[in-house]
């Protein structure tokens, strides 16, 4: 019996890497990758082989900006029904979170996805329903698919969709961190395929691999990067072929293309990243809560919101700091009482580190 969790095989791959005697630093951009690495102790195992793997800006909840959080908080305060994902409601804003507001009696709903939010709108025709649409290319097609089906007039979204390749480019352009290889996110790649990453290898000479989420997927991914480095190659390899195809999910890409266009966007911990936003096209402006409730959002329109005091999520998201090195980690900032989003989301590197270190 041979599975993607086989310990013996894992050890054999690790031994093979160990023999090469390398000192490399890789980055991945996916919370589920981080979960696999920490849960199975692969991070420790690989460190012993000279390979450090850190998480970059790969948690959609974490990279959502303080301003976006304040927008949704304000709309909840203006008595809209606000719907979003479970980990989003706990992200602290300047003074409170959606979760606090819920206990204060505001109508905040947790949903599995955008379709549930549309159902809430259909059942509450007299009320306005705003969905906080967070997520990378994995989630954006679900928003696109729903908007293409003419949801009811009382439904709209605070659009926070972002795209991964421009963020990778931003990290490399900033040059704050040495990256010998990139492990690309399996689920984002399920939608976009492998082509959109190619410029990173050709322009920056960085080897890449799209990897799955089982321990052997990740180890194999690491091996595929090490091999490229050994052979002085820089291309995009695909380890996760059972799910990721070169062309991605064509139906999903088509839906995204119909609904969104490229724009620039600020990410938490980053300046504005060019072309990293999926902006709603003209025909879907009626579903844009920022336009629809422009007057109600006026009071925070030009206001800047800072990161919580002492919070180092920004540096974490740029791969500069491991969670344990944040002075707040496990003391003032815990999953029960989070200061920053990286401790809130189960995809956040602080939350993952805390969960498995306890």
């Amino acid at each position, binding site marked *: 019996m041979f599975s993607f969790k086989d310990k013996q095989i894992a050890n054999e791959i690790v031994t*093979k890497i160990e023999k090469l005697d390398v000192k490399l630093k890789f980055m991945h951009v996916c919370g589920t990758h981080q979960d696999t690495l920490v849960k199975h102790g692969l991070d420790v195992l690989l460190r012993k082989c000279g390979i450090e793997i850190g998480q970059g800006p790969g948690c959609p909840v974490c990279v959502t900006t303080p301003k976006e959080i304040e927008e949704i908080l304000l709309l909840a305060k203006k008595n809209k029904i606000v719907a979003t994902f*479970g*980990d989003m409601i706990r992200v602290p804003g300047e003074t409170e979170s959606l979760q606090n507001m819920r206990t204060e009696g505001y109508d905040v709903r947790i949903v599995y996805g955008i379709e549930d939010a549309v159902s809430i709108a259909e059942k509450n025709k007299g009320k306005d329903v705003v969905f906080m649409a967070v997520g990378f290319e994995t*989630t954006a097609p679900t928003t696109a*698919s729903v908007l293409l089906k003419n949801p009811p007039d009382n439904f709209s979204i605070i659009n926070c969709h972002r795209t991964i390749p421009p963020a990778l480019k931003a990290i490399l352009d900033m040059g704050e961190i040495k990256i010998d290889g990139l492990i690309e996110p399996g689920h984002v790649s399920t939608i976009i395929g492998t082509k959109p990453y190619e410029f990173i290898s050709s322009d920056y000479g960085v080897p890449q691999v799209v990897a799955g989420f089982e321990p052997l997927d990740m180890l*194999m991914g690491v091996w595929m990067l090490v091999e490229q480095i050994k052979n002085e190659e820089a291309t995009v390899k695909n380890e996760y072929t059972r799910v990721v195809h070169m062309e991605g999910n064509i139906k999903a890409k088509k839906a995204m293309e119909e609904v969104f266009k490229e724009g620039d966007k600020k990410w938490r911990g980053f300046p504005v990243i060019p072309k990293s936003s999926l902006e709603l096209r003209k025909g879907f402006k009626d579903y844009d809560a920022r336009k629809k409730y422009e007057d109600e959002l006026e009071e925070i329109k030009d206001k800047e919101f800072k990161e919580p005091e002492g919070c180092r999520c920004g540096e974490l998201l740029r791969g500069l700091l491991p969670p344990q090195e944040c002075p707040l980690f496990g003391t003032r900032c815990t999953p029960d009482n989070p200061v920053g989003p990286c401790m809130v989301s*189960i995809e956040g590197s602080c939350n993952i580190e805390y969960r498995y270190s306890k």
Partner: protein
Amino acid sequence: MDLKLLCHLEHNFITYKAIITPYMCLAIPGKIIEFDKKKEHATVDYGDGTKRKANVTLVNAKVGDYVLVHAGFAIQVLDEKEAHETLDLFREMLSMEEEN
């Protein structure tokens, strides 16, 4: 290797959480049991009796297929042939090591 084994991720924390709690960003594999009349949604079995409806308009799937579900939408059909080939690749890599 049975694809079912590959898909049912032994109910580790993250999988379990994703099925029972609406966390975003995760994608969980499950098997399509039946389609609704309009064929826009299907019942997906995640193992151990956990079944939920998922939107299947973004994939070309049939009953019995394993799909990857994210935020209530199936985003891809899992390719059994490729799963086997990946495992073969691992085997091949390791046997090359032995030869060396």
